[in-house]
């Protein structure tokens, strides 16, 4: 059948790893499904097996500790994060990014990890997570490893993940807690829209400025750290040299470049001046 796939709903990580080992590239993990199901329906993707991870307790965990920071399990939805008072207090920038994703009903399903694994250049949580130095915990039957989010993206819709691996959680380190930050996103309407270009800025430990940009290159990009007394023009210069926006039906390259400059200036005024 056209949409035909076998649906699995493992109850543990061990079971999940077994399924991934067995089916490899023939299977796809389903969490929120807000991209996956749309793509399957449109005939853009086809899988023999769909593995739903929402029934695995540890992947639904959203927790914070002073030692480990914020841990966002692979099945944690955007709304769960946004409504979590600790996340709001300690990682406000990330919540602000998550609040701009799609619409309220979609945020109730879409997951933070899904937003990252999907690896769209316009992923809204990516700039925030990059600024906050997020780490990705990857698991498989042969063990687990942690890599920095900035090294996880490989290209448009491509991440460093083998067919037998899955992202178990995203960890936002304690060093980034309480960071001041904000996110600015250009849209065509005020309601839900993909970012035409967006910029997140954070001030880490009160002395490092971090800037990350989405929809301006094949992957979301993070600029090198700036010290707090860096002039805004210098940041803009580095940003414009780092990004490689394109012309498409959503926006032109010129306008994207212009708006990156405007957003960095405004974020700088808001957070640093």
């Amino acid at each position, binding site marked *: 059948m056209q949409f035909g796939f076998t649906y699995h709903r493992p109850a543990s990580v061990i079971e999940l790893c077994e399924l991934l080992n067995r089916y490899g590239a023939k299977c796809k993990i389903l969490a929120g499904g807000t991209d996956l199901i749309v793509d399957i329906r449109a005939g853009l993707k086809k899988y023999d097996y769909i593995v739903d991870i929402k029934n695995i307790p540890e992947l639904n965990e959203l927790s914070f500790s002073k030692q480990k920071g914020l841990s966002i399990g692979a099945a944690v939805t955007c709304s769960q994060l946004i409504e979590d008072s600790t996340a709001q207090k300690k990682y406000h920038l990330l919540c602000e990014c998550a609040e701009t994703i799609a619409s309220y009903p979609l945020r109730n399903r879409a997951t933070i990890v899904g937003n990252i694994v999907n690896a769209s250049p316009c992923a809204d949580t990516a700039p925030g997570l990059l600024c906050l130095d997020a780490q990705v915990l990857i698991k498989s039957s042969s063990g687990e490893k942690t890599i920095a989010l900035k090294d996880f993206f490989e290209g448009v819709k491509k991440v460093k993940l083998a067919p037998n691996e899955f992202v178990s959680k995203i960890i936002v380190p304690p060093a980034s807690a309480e960071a001041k930050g904000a996110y600015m996103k250009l849209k*065509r309407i005020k*309601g839900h829209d993909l970012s035409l270009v967006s910029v997140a800025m954070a001030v880490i430990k009160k002395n490092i400025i971090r800037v990350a940009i989405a929809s301006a290159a094949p992957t979301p990009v993070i600029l090198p750290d700036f010290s707090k007394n860096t002039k805004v023009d210098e940041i803009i210069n580095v940003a414009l040299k780092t990004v490689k926006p394109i012309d498409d039906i959503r926006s032109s390259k010129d306008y994207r470049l*212009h708006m990156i400059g405007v957003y960095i200036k405004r974020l700088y005024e808001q957070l640093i001046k």
Partner: protein
Amino acid sequence: MFENIDPKELKYVGKGLKRIDGIEKATGDALYVSDMFLHGMLHAKVKASPFASARIKKIDTSRAEKLPGVRAILTGADLNYRVGLYIVDKYILAKDIVRHQGEAVAAVAADTEEIAKAAVDLIEVEYEELEPVLDPLKAIQTDAPLVHPDLGKYSYVEAAFTPVPGTNIANHTKLRKGDIEKGFKEADYIFEREYSNPSVQHVPMETHVSIAQWQAGDKITIWSSAQSPFTVRNLFCYSFGISHKNVRVIVPYVGGGFGGKAGIALEPLVACLSKKAGGKPVKLQATREEEFNLLACRSALVYKIKTGVKKDGKIIAQRMEMFWDSGAYADYAVNVTRASGYSAAGPYEIPNAWLDAYTIYTNKVYGTAYRGFGHVEFFWGLERHMDYIADKLKIDPLKFRLINTLKPGSRTITGELIHENSGNVSKCLETVAKAINYGVKTKEEEKREKQNKTIISKAVCALHKAPAMPPFTGTVVIIKMNEDGSVIANLALTDYGAGTYTSIAQIIAEQLRIPFEKVKIAFECDTDRDPYDWQTVASKGLMLSGNAAILACKDMLEKMYDMAAQILRANPCDLRHNDEKVYIVHDPHKFVRYREMAVGYAYSNGNGIGGPLVGVGRYTACGLTNLDKETGQGNPALDWTYGAHGVVIEIDPETGEFSVIHSASAFDAGKVINAAAARGQCVGGFIQGLGTAICEGYIYNSKGQLMNPSFTDNKIPTAKDIPEKMEVFFVETPQLDGPYGARGIGEHSMISVAPAIGNALKNALGIELLRMPIRSEDVWRELSKKRKAK
């Protein structure tokens, strides 16, 4: 039928009563065709052309036929029927040639939707790609390839349209008033500019969906999400040569249409699949993506206006050229061309006018009716042009408009005389200007500018529109009284969201003097059971069907009076009615209750008189004419509804982003029948107008393929885009042939939103945007150009 009744004496008319369909829609009880499932029903899918223009060399359905569960497969070769509203130019499935990307070349009916889709994927089509005709201005050049080489052979409505065989011109509408050359000679200044806008999709909440069953003896039943059941039936019967009595069209609740469901769409294809499948019912519902390029859209327009004015601001001559991009088929686009042609100068008096309006075939998605019927598109140019002239003359744009507005004694460009009861556009303009504090910036606005580092700007624009319909358009309402004295009204005007039925229920309650709760309007329309109505389009529903409802009540009352005269032994002229009773005027305690007469009156000994009560009201537009084909002169308008929009916008000059923070709209509604529904229409229309203005529109690549056939890249406004403050005002200059003096307002609310925003941007930034939509990037780009030029 305007009756000069003191509003204080009206019990229901004019009040903001709750919609009669509110509960079933809020609870989900209302049944739509999307919800329907019939026993043994098959599901259909279509195979769409990936090319804008191509020759079909071969279609191989053999693999699809072998798929279990497939019950019928059709290709263009199987169907030799053409369909068309005004020009019969479209095959049910493309035959030999495809004329736009997304056009159906084959269709499958199967046991499930999934099997149908899988079968469609197994159909192999071999195409020879042809050079598409995409630019309407190039399409009318003599060497352009022809989209319809057989145009000369098609049948068409000759009274209204003029196709030009051997060209891509599906219709050429002409209008000549006065002496244009003399007018331009007498002008002190001449201003000329060109404005354009793209095609736009209606995006109704319920996508197009039809179920059809073609049974033995060519007895056909169609359930459809359609605006006009009788037009579906008529066009269907015309195409297939089947008697009207054999075809039954049923329209239950409809989830929005905005003109996109005005004519005929999926019905013929679904019926043919049912026939091929041996008479099983077949259902086809368009996906959201198919709404964009299998179904029709709003036509794109290029509008060239050349205006001659005197120093004092009086327009003396105007030459107008409209190039309507009809896409692959003429559908409604030819009538959009005609109707916007006779309306093209707006609510202004132009002594010398010249218009050429062309409907041009191209290899793009075909154009159909869309709320405003051409007026949203051409008013974008016209009202931008009015500000352009005012600016050049250094006259305030509002003042410039007021100098030129149609007033009693003016003649429209078709020569129609405007009188005291035609409506008052000047008053609409003045009302919105006052509401937005036009011409000044308030203290709060200045404070806001400073706080937000923004610029606040204002503009007002006028609008008008008359229904586009055959001059003899008529309708019927039938009212039946029940045993308890409640009534049920049947009419085939549909209520696909506008709230017209509630207004008609108010009119019936008012006329019969019964409680509003005792009136039911049967929501499901059925051509076998309901009396005729032409179409639910053109903002004419309330006026024509409202009049028919009044006449139906009068007819029923006459029958009740006849009966009551016998029962009460009175002269009918001495009878009156109120509180569900007919009584003797000079002896009110002698009365007979409606319910006693509802199914005929029975005397105590069992004798009966009268018979069950039915009221029939027939109404036909009065005094309208076809327009002269050479001069465009004549009387096309049932009524002119005038209006105006005022906007206050806030602009971020650094990014080009802007938003409407305050809107004021005023319409001369003649008489508001339902205050809440009228406001709802006006608020909704403004937001739809905002979508057209800021973000909607088809984007094609150089091969004629649609780049944004979904909500991903064809955005529509959301709740967050609604202006902070929206005001709606009604001027009430009674329409003498309107029910209680009412006119239609359904489409008008979205007409001049875009130019008002364009003009406000011009006023604040000095930038001249001539193409819709106005995206923030466009504002930024024009501003950058201006800064560089300095």
